[in-house]
């Protein structure tokens, strides 16, 4: 490890959320990196964020060379991210070089030329603000201004080499025509960059999905493949570094109550404090009730709880909870509970993830519930849903709080769902809630399918829901196959039962 590291080029931490993880530490120091992507893929935002983060997180100044958008437009466009380019410019932290073509100005070519003036201006700006970071956005706009594309390519190459000598790290953005075609227009990539990032903005099953891929870093390591990212009005580009998520979770021996005393007993004293619990069941089995119990247990201890609701509105949830004598309203007023009710369809899964993470970081709850997690399946492709679940789970684990997710199964009896197959391996505990049909009567059964790190009750317990909530009663005896949804009865009991059932009616006859 240490030997391979010795050869690796030094990197510059960008400060862009997630990027430094997928790039194993940032952009190659003092090199140029080409950022290629179709129109609207987020190139300019990423590039400008690189400059802003430089000032905000590393006190490194920057130069923005704009070829396409006039400086005023550029500043106005990024103001929506809360980036005050104007004052950064005024304070001498970011210099802007305006290389946009003058409107309506004719330019005649009469002989040989080069772009030395541009280079001189960039150099001048770098000196002026003592810049460490440079952005050229987007060099594609340079080509139509000159008749000879070869000259432009050659000069860009020269500029990139000169910037390297000036000790600045550069991002060069370049438009590409389509997602699967050439890397960049005008053959720029062959001339400019040892390092290439590709931003994609694909339409997958009617959902937009943005990804970033590090195509190459010459002489440096990076994570491979595409990573989803989102462009958000509070933070700009946020990359979700999925496979770079480390399995470095603390383990706690502390137990917390599930809110249902009998369930606590079944799992040996409650949930582990930093565990993820999946409650899976068909509609009406009492999942939301279980969530209510779970939240109340925190509130009663004076701890904060966060509820992400995806199926019911705040009013519905509050009303239902009050039926079980849980007062969500006053808990929210006391600052012990926060309910975020948002339909999954309102935005992409990457954005949901970002918002939930932000809520967790802001509210600092001791436990979180997502009711139901499976509703988020609707908001993305199966792939992005899986990524969402993994990223959410690992974030909850990282902050070391308890997470309870519910999962709605499509079948009333038994059955598995996508959510179960996706996340059963990353949850620490799975609680199944099932309808059980016994002798023509619907009853409900609860089973703990797995629980990491401890012994748990293997029985399938019947539970009832009354005015006070959920109560676990006796174990189902002499019945097999409850989980599959097709129970069979043991013969001896069956005969008794039949005798009982028909005995009564026979005497009536």
């Amino acid at each position, binding site marked *: 490890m240490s030997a391979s590291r010795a050869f690796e080029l030094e990197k510059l931490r960008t400060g862009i959320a997630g990027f430094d993880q997928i790039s194993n530490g940032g952009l190659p120091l003092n090199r140029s990196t080409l950022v290629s992507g179709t129109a609207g893929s987020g190139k300019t935002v990423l590039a400008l964020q690189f400059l802003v983060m430089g000032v905000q997180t590393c006190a490194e100044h920057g130069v923005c060379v704009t070829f396409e958008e006039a400086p005023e437009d550029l500043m106005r466009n990024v103001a929506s991210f809360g980036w005050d380019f104007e004052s950064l410019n005024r304070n001498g932290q970011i210099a802007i*070089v*305006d*290389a*946009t073509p*003058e409107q309506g*100005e*004719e*330019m*005649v*070519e*009469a*002989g*040989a*030329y*080069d*772009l*030395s*003036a*541009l280079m*001189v*201006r960039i*150099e*001048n*700006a770098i000196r002026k603000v003592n810049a460490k970071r440079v952005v050229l956005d987007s060099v594609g706009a*340079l080509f*139509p*201004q*000159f*008749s000879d594309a070869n000259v432009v390519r050659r000069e860009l190459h020269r500029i990139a080499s000169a910037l390297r000598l000036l000790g600045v790290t550069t991002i060069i953005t370049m438009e590409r025509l389509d997602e699967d075609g050439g890397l960049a227009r005008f053959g720029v990539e062959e001339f400019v960059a040892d390092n290439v990032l590709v931003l994609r903005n694909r339409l997958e099953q009617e959902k937009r999905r943005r990804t970033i891929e590090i195509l190459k870093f010459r002489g440096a390591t990076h994570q491979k493949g595409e990573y989803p990212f989102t462009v958000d009005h509070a933070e700009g580009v946020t990359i979700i570094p999925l496979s770079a998520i480390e399995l470095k979770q603390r383990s706690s021996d502390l137990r917390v109550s599930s809110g249902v005393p009998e369930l606590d007993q079944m799992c040996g004293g409650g949930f582990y404090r930093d565990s993820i619990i999946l409650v899976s069941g068909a509609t009406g089995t009492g999942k939301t009730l279980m969530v209510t119990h779970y939240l109340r247990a925190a509130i009663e201890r004076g701890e904060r709880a966060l509820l992400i609701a995806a199926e019911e509105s705040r009013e519905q949830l509050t009303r239902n909870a009050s039926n079980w004598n849980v007062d969500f309203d006053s808990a929210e007023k006391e600052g012990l509970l926060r309910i975020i009710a948002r339909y999954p369809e309102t935005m992409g899964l990457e954005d949901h993830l970002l918002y939930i993470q932000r809520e967790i970081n802001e509210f600092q709850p001791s436990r979180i519930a997502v009711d139901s997690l499976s509703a988020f399946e609707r908001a993305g492709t199966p792939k992005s849903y899986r990524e969402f679940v993994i990223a959410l789970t690992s974030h909850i684990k990282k902050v070391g709080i308890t997470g309870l997710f519910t999962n709605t199964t499509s079948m009333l009896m038994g059955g598995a769902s996508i959510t179960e197959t996706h996340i059963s391996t990353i949850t620490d505990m799975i609680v199944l809630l099932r309808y059980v049909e016994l002798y023509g009567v619907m009853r409900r059964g609860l089973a703990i399918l797995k629980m990491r790190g401890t012994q748990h009750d293997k029985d399938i317990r019947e539970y009832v829901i009354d005015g006070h909530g959920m109560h676990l009663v006796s174990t189902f005896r002499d019945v097999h196959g409850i989980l599959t949804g097709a129970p069979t009865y043991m013969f001896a009991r069956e005969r008794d039962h039949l005798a009982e059932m028909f005995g009564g009616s026979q005497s009536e006859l």
Partner: protein
Amino acid sequence: MTLQLGLFITGQTSNSLRAMENLRRICQHELNIPCEIDIIDVLEHPQIAEDEKIVATPTLVKRHPGPVRKIIGDLSDTRKVLLGLGILQNSSAGRMGKEEGAGNERE
């Protein structure tokens, strides 16, 4: 009427030297009006290049009379320079007009 011109160069490169030489020749032999020439070395005055948004060098800027026009290159193509300065009208050079049309298309 005086023609006010600015010529942006970068040091003593061959393009710079040729551009100065060609401009002198054109002013002396092709133009019937007096011209003021301001030669700016962008290496020494980068801020002027910044203010006038010069990207390529050499660049000849016609500052007065308006409108402002920019002619880039070492000015070896005399006809293009005259066209760019608005001295040579398309009517006075029939075949030139054709050439310029082709040039526009390329742009």
